[in-house]
């Protein structure tokens, strides 16, 4: 009985109906957290001693980079679950996670470039962290391209799940790149195990932003997954009832 929820999770219909109630709350949480975080971070956090105001892009850059990496795990793990337990729903989550992750990776690369100009004097360097994030973008695009290229949906699901899994070998390298190759990019500022090298007055708004990005990610992922579920189950009765209402 304990596993009942897990089996239910395999049903797109159950998932769709269950998550309907979550969406407004997630949306509310995202908006509140993001607004609070941006106002706090951009308006009230102190100026950085060395970088002046330009450091404030950290409030977008770091959360986006966080989610870009975490999003790859979400994609790969849901792909693995789909391969192992042959769950349709899990594949839908994987498919939905790919473009979101790609966009977040792009945002973190773009904000990094914008931030790099005033602080390092250059938009782009072949630094370990930047290059490995670019590789992450290619990994995402590869998964998306493969899933588009294979015409049969079930085959495309499995193939892209396998590719996502294979790609995970690069993720630890991306994570640790700033510590292993000490080049231009600063080492990780936020650490879970020891005290962070960032002042609390900047750290708290950053945490709020990270929480806000997580909520937004969950919200976007759910919305996208639900859309995919509707499209895939287009011909079933429950979707028709859901969209058209009771006949």
């Amino acid at each position: 009985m304990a596993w009942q929820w897990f089996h239910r999770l395999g049903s797109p219909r159950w998932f769709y109906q269950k998550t309907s109630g979550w969406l407004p709350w997630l949306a509310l949480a995202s908006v509140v957290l993001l607004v609070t975080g941006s106002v706090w971070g951009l308006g009230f956090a102190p100026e950085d001693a060395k970088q002046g105001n330009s450091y404030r892009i950290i409030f977008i850059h770091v959360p986006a980079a966080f989610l870009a990496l975490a999003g790859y795990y979400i994609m790969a793990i849901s792909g693995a679950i789909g391969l192992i337990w042959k769950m349709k729903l899990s594949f839908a989550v994987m498919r939905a996670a790919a473009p979101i992750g790609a966009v977040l990776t792009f945002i973190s690369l773009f904000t990094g470039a914008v931030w790099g100009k005033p602080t390092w004097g250059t938009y782009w360097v072949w630094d370990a962290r930047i290059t490995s994030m670019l590789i992450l973008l290619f990994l995402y695009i590869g998964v998306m391209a493969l899933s588009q290229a294979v015409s049969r949906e079930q085959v495309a699901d499995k193939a892209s799940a396998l590719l996502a899994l294979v790609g995970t070998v690069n993720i630890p390298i991306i994570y640790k790149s700033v510590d292993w190759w000490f080049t231009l990019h600063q080492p990780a500022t936020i650490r879970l195990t020891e005290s962070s090298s960032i002042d609390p007055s900047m750290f708290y708004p950053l945490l709020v932003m990270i929480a806000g990005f997580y909520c937004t990610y969950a919200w976007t992922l759910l919305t996208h997954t639900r859309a995919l579920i509707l499209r895939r189950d287009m011909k079933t009765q429950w979707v028709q009832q859901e969209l058209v209402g009771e006949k």
Partner: protein
Amino acid sequence: MSLTDVQSPVVGARATPGFAALFKIEMLLALRKRADIANPLLFFVTVLALLPLGVGPEPELLAKMAPGMIWVMALLATMLSQESLFRGDFEDGTLEQLALLPQPLYFAVLAKSLVHWIATGLPLALLSPLLALMLNLPTEGYLCLFVSLFLGTASLSLIGAIGAALTVALRRPGLLLALIVMPLYVPVLIFGTGAVQAAIDGYAYSAQLAILAALLAAAAALAPLAAAGAIRISLDN
């Protein structure tokens, strides 16, 4: 080679076709299509010959670029020749027969990757001192370049097999294969060029070579598994 020869381990009296038989068949096939072996090498040499024409023939500049250029060209040559790794067997149905064998598909992939490496990676590694000479690479780097290519191209063949297996059912896999496989090549490229650079600069480079060897061990253990899974998925298509 006719289909019956290829199928002989499947239907033949020998009950243990095994890795060795598959390897022998693949090797024979590779030897009979010599152009397929020569093409990646020619590609490798031609592009490297274009390099001095493109960036200028200054010896210092070439010496600086040599390790990276040789490595990137090895990457491209491996990838381009990999597209056809499973294609012929997929089209004539041999791949399905291999998938039906009682022995794991793992060994078939391993045999094919090994032959692919012997046909492309190994000659590239053997040829590399000559190219290093042409590109004016400092002599300290020769041995390291050879060893790093020797280890690294084997990993590339194994990793590329995953991409080739994933795209075998597609009509035009070329660019998609590049998109899929290139990011996976990155660790090998980083440590391969890192080793050569360290050797040129006069530092110890055994650590990088050890990592390359470790990558190869991991690729040999895991990549054929992933590729075998990908073949089974592609056969569903």
